[in-house]
């Protein structure tokens, strides 16, 4: 058992035992290699099944919406930023939460790892900086830093921004020269190439809405895709409908997205839906110097304004 897992379990157990909280939300191990399961512990025994590894990719803030009890929650950097979002947007109150922060050294990309092998991965074991992958015929040791998820490799806030306790020492916050290189690559394309890029990207979309549902920002009582009067988006596989869905989904996250990557993680078709949200993240950063969820005081950029905001584009 790694130290962080041990610390998380101990902290969670004592929170439940002392009745500081009613439940603790964390991860337990999954049933297939390279997976984890969001999990709620109500008893100290259950708290002892919490784990922490580089597959805790989903964003646990997603499980806070509408809960009434006193909650302990395990939060890596991005989770904590989404918790901050939730607090700003009145989806949960700070007093209701006891945040066990986990400084994060990044989660690995299971698709990237799987693509290294022609066979199915049957076992995965983790070491501090590397991991061992087993298939039917081979065993390979790979370095974590080479297989980080795209969003983790450009993450500048691996430490939780709000927390009550930490489950490990803070990690060094990396300085990344250009955190939006991926956006720049698309921006450099011609208009037709851009259109084509998103056409290819969305070719496999099956409209399961896993991206939306895994996103901690998507808590609208009725999502625009589910509205029937008027119906904004057709429900079939028409490419315009699919593109419209992704445009609007991303747009609803403008200035709120923490680039936690839960959307990509959840997509069964491995679509990099971050290609939409990243552009918005870059723009709000460039124009308003904003990164979502860094504190619980400032309103997100679309919920506020400055009389001197850029408006050269307006006639």
């Amino acid at each position, binding site marked *: 058992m790694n130290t962080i897992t041990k610390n998380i379990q101990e902290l969670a157990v004592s929170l439940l035992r002392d009745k500081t909280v009613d439940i603790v939300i964390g991860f337990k191990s999954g*049933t297939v290699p390279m*997976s984890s399961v969001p999990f709620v512990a109500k008893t100290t025994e259950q708290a002892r099944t919490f784990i922490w590894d580089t597959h805790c990719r989903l964003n646990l803030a997603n499980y806070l919406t509408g809960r009434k009890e006193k909650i302990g929650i395990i939060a890596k950097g991005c989770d904590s930023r989404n918790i901050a979002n939730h607090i700003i947007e009145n989806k949960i109150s700070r007093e209701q939460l006891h945040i066990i922060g986990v400084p994060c050294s990044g989660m690995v990309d299971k698709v990237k790892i799987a693509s290294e092998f022609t066979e199915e991965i049957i076992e995965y074991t983790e070491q501090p900086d590397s991991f061992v992958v087993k298939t039917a015929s081979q065993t390979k040791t790979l370095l974590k830093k080479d297989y980080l998820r795209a969003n983790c490799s450009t993450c500048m806030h691996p430490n939780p921004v709000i927390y009550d306790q930490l489950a490990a020492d803070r990690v060094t916050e990396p300085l990344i020269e250009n955190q939006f290189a991926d956006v720049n690559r698309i921006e450099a394309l011609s208009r037709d190439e851009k259109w084509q890029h998103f056409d290819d990207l969305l070719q496999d979309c099956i409209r399961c809405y*896993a991206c939306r549902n*895994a996103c901690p920002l998507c808590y609208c009582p009725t999502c625009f895709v589910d509205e029937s009067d008027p119906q904004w988006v057709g429900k079939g596989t028409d490419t315009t409908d699919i593109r419209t869905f992704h445009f609007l989904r991303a747009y609803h996250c403008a200035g709120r997205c923490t680039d936690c990557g839960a959307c990509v993680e959840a997509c069964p078709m491995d679509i990099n839906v971050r290609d939409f949200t990243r552009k918005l993240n870059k723009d709000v950063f460039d124009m308003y110097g904003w990164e979502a969820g860094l504190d619980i005081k400032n309103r997100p950029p679309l919920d506020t304004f400055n009389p001197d905001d850029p408006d050269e584009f307006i006639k």
Partner: protein
Amino acid sequence: MEIIKIKKSDWAGGIDKSRKTYHLFGPVKHKNHHIFRQLENNIYPDMEYMSSVLSPKSVLFPQSQKILVTSADASGKACHIFTPPEQDHTPRAVIGIRPCDAKAVQLVKLNFDTKEYQDPYWCSAFEATTFVGLAVNTPSVLDFSTSAGSGPFAQEGLDVLLVDCKDHYLAKILSQKGKEFLNTAGFNEKEDPKAADQVIQQMKISAEKAICSVIQTQHLKKKTVLELYEAPFWEDIAFSCISCGTCAYVCPTCWCFDIQDETQGKTAVRFRNWDTCMPALFTRHSSGHNPRGEKIQRVRQRFMHKLKYFDDKYDQGIMCIGCGRCVEKCPVNIDIRDICNLMNAYKPEKESDAGEIKGEIK
């Protein structure tokens, strides 16, 4: 029983020959995964594939399908009188379908082909289709088909079973349709059926042995719906669910659909689209009342349907063939194998709980 030997060197030629009569569907590598789709003339099924991310159910049940069309032009005579669009039901063949996926088609048939009503779109496509299966020599760690009423070499629902024997396939003919397909493709090198079948049997045994994942289902039938429904484990299972439709969309046995109308210009169209029981919208009345408004109710519905209601209704076993797709693709790793075993092993604490009925209506 007839078994035909197909040399791999003859494979592509036979496939090409069959295209003259059949629209072919098969597994094709696409980005990081395999998908089942219609094969253009220069595309061959990738017979080395492990599994397809979506099941081949779309061959008979496309994700989005036009079912009725009419003119919305008020000046015309047939305005607002719906008729079905032209459908192509010339012969088609699905090459390389896994045996469990073919069994799934048989389960879906119970829904679309009933005593009272036949779904004309699904049934006509089914009639037109020849299923040329590919036995699984090296099953995935997620494959639990043998304990879900199928298996890596199962024959149910197939017209031909192909067995990959390195430099050749052995093709076991299972129906007249299968025989016709092989004839059309020009595959006619007969093997001694006894000897060849022995080879197949041997391979079957070792493939089945390689399956490391099993579910227990033997007690499900005798349990009452209400004791399982009221079991305490649903809350824990449902917690992590994000109510996406991934499990249903990748599932070869999920058949639920939505019906949607659209008007574009002067044409009105009625579609049907795959649907899923996971989002609340699935059962929400226009009044806002929702019999399965809570996530726990929907998660329970999914597993109760597959593992209990289905067998109670049709007496054909569970509505799962053990392909493992939902286990692999669920974003939060909700594992039907665990749930099935939980349900199978569940005993209500008090005997009296089981039969006790709500008695009154909510």
